């Protein structure tokens, strides 16, 4: 059974989706250091919206709002951790 949880799911997708997208763009920028700076900066900017909106459109697939927050929070944690790890190593 899927709960609707409109507000909770929409907020999770909007907020955590956005932070997730920014974290992904930071990971990309970190590993794309060989690109010319203007190209790298533009690609990093361009990827935020598609990732964010994909997360936002998929958020209603979660069985409940609580699960959406938990899973997306976990995904944020993983990507942020990856970023921190990569930055420490380099």
């Amino acid at each position, binding site marked *: 059974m899927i709960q609707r949880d409109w507000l909770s799911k929409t907020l999770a997708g909007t907020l955590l989706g956005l932070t997730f997208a920014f974290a992904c*763009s930071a990971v990309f920028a970190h590993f794309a250091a060989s690109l010319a700076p203007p190209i790298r900066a533009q690609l990093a*900017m361009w990827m935020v919206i598609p990732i964010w909106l994909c997360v936002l459109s998929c958020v209603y697939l979660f069985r409940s709002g609580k699960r959406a927050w938990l899973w997306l929070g976990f995904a944020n944690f993983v990507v942020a951790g990856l970023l921190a790890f990569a930055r420490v190593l380099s």
Partner: protein
Amino acid sequence: MKVPSELIRIYKAVHTWTGILTGMALFIAFYAGAITLFKEQLVAWATPPAASPARGVPLSAAPELINQTIARHSEAARELEIHVARSASAPDLLTWKVHDEGADEHDQLSARLFVATPASDGTVSAVQAERTKLAELIDVLHRVVGLPVDSDLNRSFMGVVAILYFLALASGLVTLLPSLIKDLFALRVGPNLKRMWLDAHNIVGLGSFPFHLIMALTAAVFAFHDPIYLVQNTLIHDGKLAAAFRPPAAPGGAQPRDPSTMVPPEQIVARVKAEAPDFEPTVLRYMRIKGPNPTLFVFGHDRHGALEQRALGGIAMVDPYTGRITSTAYLPGHQSASEIVLASVFALHFGSYGGAPLKWMYFLLALLGAWLVYSGNLLWIESRGRKAKQRVDGGAIPVQRRDTQLMASATIGVCLGAICGISLTICAAKWLHGRVDDLNSWHRILYYLTFFTAIAWSFYRGAARASVDLLRLATCLTLAIPLTSLIAAILPASALWASRDLGAVSVDLTAAALGLTFGVLARRTARRVYGGRRDSVWSAHAPVTESAAADSQGVAAE
């Protein structure tokens, strides 16, 4: 495909609400966007044949013209353009724009254009050009979904619309999944009108899905790039983002440069052509000529219709003092893989990657997009319509729900109002030219006057009757575009004019085709409104109150 039905219901709700919230704004964006694809041609159509003061100045005169211009008008040193390929829409060799203090960088409507005009005694004066802003106005309607000014706030509003549009697309696809194979391309023409509209909505939506996906994503990025860069500046670039975009400083350091030592534009064009033989330069845009890092953008078109970053074409970045190409990042055929990816996202929005045939395809896709959101609103109304039930109460005609009546009026008023307004304001370019002082303000006034009058009319008359009235008006106003040119051709003594420019003639022909289409729609709509079923929001004879409904008891079966 097996998808839980509960999930489908959830996504259907998302589709309904995002769609109904954005439908009308998107309609205007699509319709105005379709026209914006041929902005240059529309400018050619709307530009009077009056001789430009600086017409015919050869490219070889450019160095002297540049020197004299920036000596007298220092603001031109910030950004000026040399038009290598002169056309009906850009007849002068050297132009520059002056923006109002504090104006938004995207606001081209309020900018004033100056033309460097050489006099017979060798001096150069600045003449403010009375260039038509008709096409720019329609472009603004497109960029900010019908709002009058391209400002930060309006762009954010457009961005929210684009986000909801993306959600509507994604949820629409999910809703369609279970019946995707079964119903794919099924168009059940028949007595069930709603079924037929739904099938058509699905075919068009699915068929142009990639186009819409691109448009929704790029539009959202166009709206929000500044705040995203702002966040990433701290998150990724350690606050040094501006440095990443700044072109490398010239070896001479920060001392001011002497513009008279620049490489002449003729040689610049020759050098760029030598480097990129398929690239035909059209415009040279000089930026910060006297500053420490002067840049020259050489815009041009690839002869084979290769992918181009902007509607203006591809760009070769050149150092104006050495003539050396500093970057080929935006030059068709000379880009690295990542540069091509970046250029593609722009080109995919502007339809600038396949020459004229692709622009026409985008034109049709955009019109279909307008139809798609329009049909979405109609489906929302139709699925909330009340049908007469023969068995329950003797077939009395039910009163339609208030919300469907209002939504029907709004949809008809906004969509057809935008069409009427755009057609009328296009005609005004020729009829009001020379008769009013500030034609560009008139363009805006006429558009919004028509637009809001249409909406008011639609609520006053009811959606059914107004749909016929406004479609007839749209037919007349749109056919008036080619008729204006025709009258000008027949009566050369009139103040009107008809350009023989291929682009201008295409505008006339396209308007004729669209006008005739609206005419056919008007006839068919009239048939339904005045002679069709009465238990519909689209009937002129539908009862509006309960007492009227009671009166109609027993005559419903007709």
